[in-house]
């Protein structure tokens, strides 16, 4: 099956949202996706992009068929105060029926190349601890589990806590 990888364009936001929801569904969290196409458009294709996407597209069965978006990676750049720029892999998904064709490996190769070109010292990402196939996919390619090796724990302040903290204390 012919496929190609390319940078996402504004017209891809509906496919990006569709794939984000499909991946969330796989994680049994579909109702947690509150992002809209409009936000994806503003946040990814405005003056300051907050994320970048690479799309994997399958050629249509006949020449008149539109190509179909079947996978994507979403990434952005982060900064490690010890070594500088890092590429952060936020989302990585290939539709079920298009797996086993090398699309995932090719997407990973593409962003590894991008990380090197932009002089990043590493690529980081989180994996759910019970997602064995993904953990193995990454470990086979040299990924280290920093949570295990270095004991890092990911924390969050949600909106409520942020608002509470930003409100001036009563005199």
């Amino acid at each position, binding site marked *: 099956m012919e496929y190609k990888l390319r940078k996402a364009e504004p017209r891809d936001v509906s496919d990006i949202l569709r794939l984000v929801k499909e991946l969330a569904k796989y994680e049994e969290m579909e109702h947690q996706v509150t992002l809209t196409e409009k936000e994806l458009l503003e946040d990814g294709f405005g003056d300051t992009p*907050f994320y970048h996407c690479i799309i994997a597209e399958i050629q249509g069965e006949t020449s008149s068929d539109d190509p179909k978006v079947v996978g994507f990676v979403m990434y952005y750049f982060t900064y490690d105060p010890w070594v500088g720029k890092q590429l952060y892999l936020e989302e990585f998904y290939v539709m079920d029926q298009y797996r086993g064709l090398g699309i995932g490996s090719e997407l990973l190769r593409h962003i590894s190349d991008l990380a090197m070109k932009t002089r*990043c010292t590493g690529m980081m990402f989180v994996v*759910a601890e019970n997602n064995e196939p993904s953990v193995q996919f990454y470990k086979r390619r040299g990924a280290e589990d920093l949570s295990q090796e270095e004991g890092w724990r990911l924390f969050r302040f949600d909106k409520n806590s942020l608002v509470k903290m930003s409100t001036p204390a009563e005199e």
Partner: protein
Amino acid sequence: MASFILRKAEPNDVSDILRLIKELAKFEEMEEKVMLTEKDLLNDGFGDHPFYHCLVAEVPKEQSSEGYTVIGFAMYYFTYDPWIGKLLYLEDFYVMQGFRGLGIGSQILKVLSETAVKTRCSSMHFIVAENNTKSIEFYKRRGASDLSSEEGWRLFEIEKEDLLKMTAK
């Protein structure tokens, strides 16, 4: 009673920022791992596209320790959650030992929270070493939840060597 101000970092601050990064790394017993230079910090933070932002805490010269007036900082950047959108990511957060207990840390967190809310971020994320109980308590007191505990996320890294391996066809 120490008086202090918080302000956005400027290009002139890069040597203080690097000094504080190294002090924090020393506290984590990782000082030799800091490879970043002032030049990197300058290019990466104050060029066309900043890869990070810094808030610095400054005290007047008379209160300065060994001549340093910049005695604390927070380094942050924006990340993106595909379910909810923009997030503020707190990367480094440090106040020099001699200036603790004066409310500087709390004030830094307050300004960061305001920044997050103003830029329409849904939340602030950061990682903490699991054995750093003091910091964990500091954050939990202010409402932070341990996502590693609650949602089982594990942080992974692929280093340059392995990235290079993957780029080879």
